């Protein structure tokens, strides 16, 4: 029986086609599973691109107000940063919020749709384990989405900056001040750090959504949203407390305060000095969140493996 051992070579020699990345055999199922997720879920990058396009259209149309913006600074110099930087921060926030909403719906569908349309029978006929399948799906919101959002935001802000420069150049004033107010390299570092910390902070949410997606027979959205709300309701009625609701609220909103120190509440504009990785990665809340995410993903693997398919 052991003549059929797993020592079989993973790729017969000479079969790797031209133009394909040379990958170690162990990485190939992950790489191609990731590719297939992006083939299927084009909204992951199309939606942020559409928002970016809308932002740019708005900026072009609002170009006339740019000198107005700079005029205001002369009156109240203290507001300079806020006035010049706000459109850039707004663009970033619009793209990122869109991206994370798309990411949430991606997770809800990722393990549900394949059962609904029975294509899971095709995926399971391939030598790709359930662990690989679930981990690649989890990698989309955890790593791929932040990378996509980073690229889209930086390119959008670069176009905005060049456009504003062109508009301001004839008057000669403000160009240097504009670049001083939105130093793209520094803000990109802040953005990259913010995106990485936010997606890690949200890891238990991604894990929960994926687990519900693997579990729910129908309506995964309702199954994902209603039970946590029900727990909040029961807790407040039975005990008169709101600790679970506070826990959820902190999970949804706490990333920023944990990742940046000295952040001004309500202000979207952050500086390099406020980046505080020691605090973020030393935070117990981050690690309990990651542990919960690991448990949810393990459950998702178990569900995908043992769910009855007929």
């Amino acid at each position, binding site marked *: *029986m*052991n003549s059929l051992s797993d020592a079989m070579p993973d790729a017969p020699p000479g079969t790797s086609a031209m133009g394909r990345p040379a990958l170690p055999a162990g990485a190939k199922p992950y790489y191609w599973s990731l590719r297939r997720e992006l083939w299927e879920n084009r909204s992951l990058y199309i939606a942020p691109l559409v928002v970016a396009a809308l932002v740019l259209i708005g900026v072009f149309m609002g170009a006339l107000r740019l000198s107005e913006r700079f005029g205001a600074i002369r009156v109240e110099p203290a507001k300079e940063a806020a006035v010049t930087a706000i459109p850039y921060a707004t663009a970033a926030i619009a793209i990122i919020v869109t991206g994370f909403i798309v990411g949430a719906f991606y997770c809800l569908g990722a393990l549900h749709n394949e059962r609904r349309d029975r*294509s899971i029978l095709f995926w399971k006929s391939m030598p790709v384990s359930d662990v690989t399948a679930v981990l690649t799906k989890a990698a989309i919101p955890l790593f791929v989405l932040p990378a996509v959002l980073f690229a889209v935001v930086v390119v959008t802000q670069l176009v905005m900056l060049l456009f504003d420069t062109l508009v301001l150049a004839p008057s000669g004033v403000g160009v240097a001040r504009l670049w001083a107010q939105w130093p793209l390299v520094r803000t990109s570092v802040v953005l990259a750090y913010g995106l990485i910390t936010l997606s890690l902070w949200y890891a238990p949410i991604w894990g929960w959504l994926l687990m519900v997606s693997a579990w729910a027979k129908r309506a995964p959205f309702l199954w994902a949203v209603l039970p946590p709300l029900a727990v909040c309701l029961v807790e407040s009625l039975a005990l008169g407390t709101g600790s679970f609701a506070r826990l959820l609220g902190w999970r949804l909103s706490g990333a920023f305060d944990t990742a940046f120190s000295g952040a001004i509440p309500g202000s979207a504009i952050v500086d390099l000095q406020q980046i505080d990785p020691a605090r973020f990665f030393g935070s117990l809340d981050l690690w309990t969140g990651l542990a919960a995410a690991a448990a949810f993903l393990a459950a998702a693997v178990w569900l995908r493996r043992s769910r*009855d398919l*007929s």
Partner: protein
Amino acid sequence: MTCIEAKGLRKSFGSTVALDGIDLKVEEGRILGLIGPNGAGKSTALNAILGLTAYQGDLKVLGRDPWVRRDQLMREVCFIADVAVLPRWMKVSQALDYVEGVHPRFSREKAKAFLAKTTIKPESRVRELSKGMVTQLHLALVMAIDAKLLVLDEPTLGLDLLFRKQFYDSLLNDYFDGARTIVVTTHQVEEVQDILTDVMFLDRGRVALDCSMEAFGQRFVEVMVHADHLNAARALMPIHERTVFGRGVMIFDSADRSQLAALGEARTPSIADLFVALIGAKTQEARGAAA
């Protein structure tokens, strides 16, 4: 070399017993037809073999326990579990890319050669293809994989006659080479009759018949009995009797052939007729009782 070996394979869903202790042995190079009424446990048996469902009892497929490492098993086992399970959003070219990427035994050239015989275009999406074309695509993908075992669960359900015929023709001509093993379930028994080397009837989770087609031809005889020999024929204990155009048609199990020849025209029954003889009556009783 044994390809599939099951001993006392059991599976129940709640209080419903889908498989009630099945013994099964499929040697390499055989083409086994798994025949049974709806709910007989065919799909459950195949799902167990493919590592898609947990089970009780012993099961080894190519020497491995399928439930433990489905991903490793799938390097050497292919299956078409149903028509139209290919993801509808996928392009034909993406399907080739993906399978080539994850499957170490896939030959893109072979798949393209099979597809060249069809009207399927590489840029088409699966949702744009007809049901028959989706099956052709799936078959092209599967036949381009150098697998040891191919499992087909109702692979031609809902296809028109031409596609069904073509499906089994290409399977036999372009794929089966005597070293591979094929397990197929279907309700269209007459279509697979001529390609099977072995047949197994399942009925309510149990094996009702398990024999090779050679043994099948030796064991079972169907006789068109002359009207004046009816009583003599009944004395030989046919397992089934029906009337066709006013003449009695009886099926005998392991009866004396020379005696039977005297009663009328004797031949090997079709799998479908034997199926009705062995299982049909019982099922009808059960259904009648339930109704």
